[in-house]
């Protein structure tokens, strides 16, 4: 298997505070990898550095073997890095299908065309519709996004990211805010994602993590504490120690 995403000695400091401390991390092609850790461990900072929203203090990031450390968000997206947001980040005034079609159009490099009408690009719409259908959202395509149930909005969030045909997908708490009875719907979608995409999931819901991930990395205080299979992680005494502080809530 090949490595699609890699960080070498990635550091981020805000003044005296170190939120990422020499993180070495590898994501394999087609991986189902989870990043977990207590609140404030630096997970979101790590993801933001991967996507280019935050510039690391030092260290390097490789995407498909290419050093992307200094590239913009847009450049990284074009090289196949997709992400979803912890809090829904959607186009509220638009229909569901347009939410997805915008991303399809950008991927195809025709999002800035000025003269033909958007709806004459039937292939863009069809691709968006197919994607929505694969996530069970076909019936909601014409609904205004703001009127969609929250759980379904989470799925649109994933659909937009998939529309970019990423090689690497960063899922930032895909089940956040979804009632626990409905998380299985999210999980169904995740299970059906194309096998070749390397997925890194950041999630608090341990049931979801252990059902989905084949590999788990634990981040504590900005540093990698441990990496291994779910079995290894579950068996490690240090993990329980880290989580004891959090588990009583």
């Amino acid at each position, binding site marked *: 298997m090949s490595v699609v995403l890699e960080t070498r000695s990635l550091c981020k400091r805000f003044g005296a505070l170190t939120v990422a401390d020499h993180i070495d991390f590898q994501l394999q092609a087609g991986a189902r990898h989870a990043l977990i850790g207590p609140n404030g461990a630096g997970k979101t900072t790590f993801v933001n550095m991967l996507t280019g929203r935050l510039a690391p203090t030092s260290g390097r990031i490789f995407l498909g073997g290419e050093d992307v450390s200094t590239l913009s*968000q847009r450049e990284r997206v074009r090289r196949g890095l997709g992400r979803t947001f912890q809090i829904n980040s959607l186009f509220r005034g638009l229909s569901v299908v347009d939410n997805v079609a915008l991303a399809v159009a950008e991927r195809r490099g025709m999002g800035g065309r000025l003269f033909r009408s958007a709806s004459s690009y039937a292939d863009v719409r069809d691709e968006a519709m197919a994607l929505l259908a694969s996530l069970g959202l076909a019936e909601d395509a014409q609904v205004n996004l703001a009127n969609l149930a929250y759980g379904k909005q989470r799925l649109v969030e994933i659909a937009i990211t998939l529309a970019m045909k990423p090689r690497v997908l960063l899922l930032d708490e895909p089940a956040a805010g979804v009632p626990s009875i409905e998380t299985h719907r999210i999980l169904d979608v995740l299970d059906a994602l194309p096998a070749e995409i390397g997925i890194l999931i950041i999630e608090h819901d341990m049931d979801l993590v252990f059902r989905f991930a084949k590999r788990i990395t634990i981040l504590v205080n900005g540093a990698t504490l441990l990496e291994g299979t779910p079995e290894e992680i579950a068996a490690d005494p240090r993990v329980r120690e880290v989580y004891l502080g959090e588990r009583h809530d």
Partner: protein
Amino acid sequence: MRHNGSYSASPRIGLIEWLPWLLGVAAFFYLPEYLSLGARILVYILYALSVDLVVGYAGIVTLGHSAFFGLGAYAAGILSAKVGVTDPMLQMLVAIASCALLGAATGALILRTRGLTLLMLTLAIAAILLEVANKATSITGGADGLSGITVAPIFGLFRFDLFGKTAYWMCLVVLFICWWITRRIIYSPFGASLVGIRENHVRMASIGSPVSMRLLTAYTLSAMLAGVAGALLTQTNQFVGLNVLSFESAGELLVMLILGGVGRIYGAFVGPIVYMIAQDQLAKQFPEYWSLGIGVLLVAIVLFARGGLLGIVDLVVAHAKRGKSAFAGKEAP
């Protein structure tokens, strides 16, 4: 009634969208004594359309679009009064080119900022132009305004007459062309992406959209439209006053736009028509009460009817439809 670039909405021009043009032509024949007011309204519709593109569609809150309107007006005026270029098409082209330059140059600098800073920068740019126009009296005429503007017949055929007939037709035709182009832009993938940026610029960036470039393009296009409007104003009035650059007039334009409805294309039509006809009828008799009324209206619209007049129409239509579908026993939650 909302017109949005969409991958699933037909861009076909609906029957009702021909109504303004029908009215525009009818006004020429049935209201000949109001042609100069009519031409002014057409100019302001075009100006409002340009502002709608940036404010309503791209979501750039600017107070400085008078810079482009004014630049277009002065470019055409100076060209005629000081350089001796009287051909209207040439004046128009120079106005468009100078606005494109100013729009691209200032846009490239200021569109990186947001919020108060952006507001401030747009305001400061317009203020600079006002200051220049005010002080460079030898070129612009300063506070007295720029007069001595002559406009040659259009294509050497249509002379600008005393009754403003040619001017009216010119405004109507130019507005039609600009409306057609703007509408195409709005329905294009580019237009759809502008709405995406307005709704969520962070997300647009994260799906790989070149947000700054899109905004800059929209800003420059809109600057060119405003420049056309400015040049038209000069050609119809054969005079340019400092007020084209003033903050009050920029504010007034925003009033017209929100009165009609922001981000809907036709809000830019309805607003200036209603506003300027009302102004024509009322403002001279009661100048104090006029601006009081405008203020109250603006506050009321913001508090109670954010969508403007067309928004109210939408609500009424939606209400009527809901009445029907309730019959079918299918009430949307």
